[in-house]
């Protein structure tokens, strides 16, 4: 469980530099050195006057299960938003008008943000959840030459499982 500093909240050059027993907080790029950080120490978290440091958990609890009705409805709405995004993106790519393109790009982005949020709440809350792993595993069947199989394998190997999956 290493510490993480939110640079946006940090007031710079103060308490965490003094309390850290290993110098992990004292880096040029403001990113706490996880190799030096002592798991569970928390000294900098407690000392920071700006609430800028938190501990990143190594393990996440399993996702709250979603009811089949919620999954069905979120998926249906998510699908609609994705289709609207695709239409807006196609209009943006083909229109001759710079103004229409601008509006269509805004619509595409807006619909993608909604789709991400709605589909996330259809059961893809955590990158390491059983649901996400099943999706990744199913992707391994894809044998298209341009498919980034290495990305899928990296995710399946590197993402720690949530405790319900062992």
């Amino acid at each position: 469980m290493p510490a993480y500093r939110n640079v946006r909240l940090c007031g710079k050059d103060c308490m965490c530099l003094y309390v850290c027993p290993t110098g992990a907080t004292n880096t040029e790029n403001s990113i706490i050195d996880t190799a030096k950080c002592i798991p569970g120490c928390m000294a900098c978290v407690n000392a920071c006057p700006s609430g800028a440091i938190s501990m990143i958990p190594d393990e996440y609890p399993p996702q709250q299960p979603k009811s089949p009705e919620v999954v069905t409805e979120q998926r249906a709405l998510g699908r609609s938003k994705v289709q609207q995004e695709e239409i807006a993106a196609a209009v943006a790519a083909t229109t001759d008008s710079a103004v229409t393109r601008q509006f269509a790009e805004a619509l595409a982005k807006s619909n993608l943000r909604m789709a991400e949020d709605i589909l996330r709440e259809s059961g893809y809350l955590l990158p390491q959840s059983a649901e996400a792993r099943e999706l990744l595993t199913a992707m391994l069947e894809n044998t298209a030459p341009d498919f980034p199989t290495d990305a899928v394998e990296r995710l399946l190997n590197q993402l720690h499982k949530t405790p319900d999956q062992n």
Partner: protein
Amino acid sequence: MRRFECSVCGYIYDEAVGLPEKGLAPGTKWEDLPEDFVCPLCSAPKTVFKPLGETAAPQPAIKRNNPVVNGDRAHGDIRDLSAGEIAAICSSLAKGCEKQRLIEEMEAYSALADYFKTKGMAQGVTLADTAVMLNEDIAKGFAAAKAAAQADGDRGALRSLIWSEKVSIMLQSLLDRFANEGDDMLSNTKIFVCDICGFIMLGGAAPEICPVCKVPQYKIVEIERR
């Protein structure tokens, strides 16, 4: 004297108070507001305001005709998901990795999102096609989804629906205007999108916070004309 609430951001226009900074004296009746009156907080049009006091009739939970309910959809059956849907799931999971500071994993999910996104291009379509789907979402989709989330006490799903319904209402009003005004709608204004909830706002500058999801200004991006 009556009061009207913006259904996007919750701003209340009170006839007794008016909106003096916009030249609307106290006592200005709702009917007497100009047609191009917009919400002073989120710039949504007059049409999305609802009179207060009248409680909205409860929306019946309409079941959608869903063409893709086959199979056990709770478990990531990839054959049930379009390329675009997988792209959206992967880009959302990439953000989840970013929040956990899993940078390599974020990049891997982003690579998958890019791959699936290139597979989903629509052909021969216009913005009017999105308006039809959007109207259907607003007329039925949100009510059905909110009923399901409420029945299960699923606060996360409900939160996503409340945000995206407000964003959808704003998009609907913009698409309606665009259908009438065309490119003139944007001739004297910038356009901003909230990078968290997708809210779209026209105006001279991004708001201090997003009227829908309340993130600060630095998460609200301007879409440039190019």
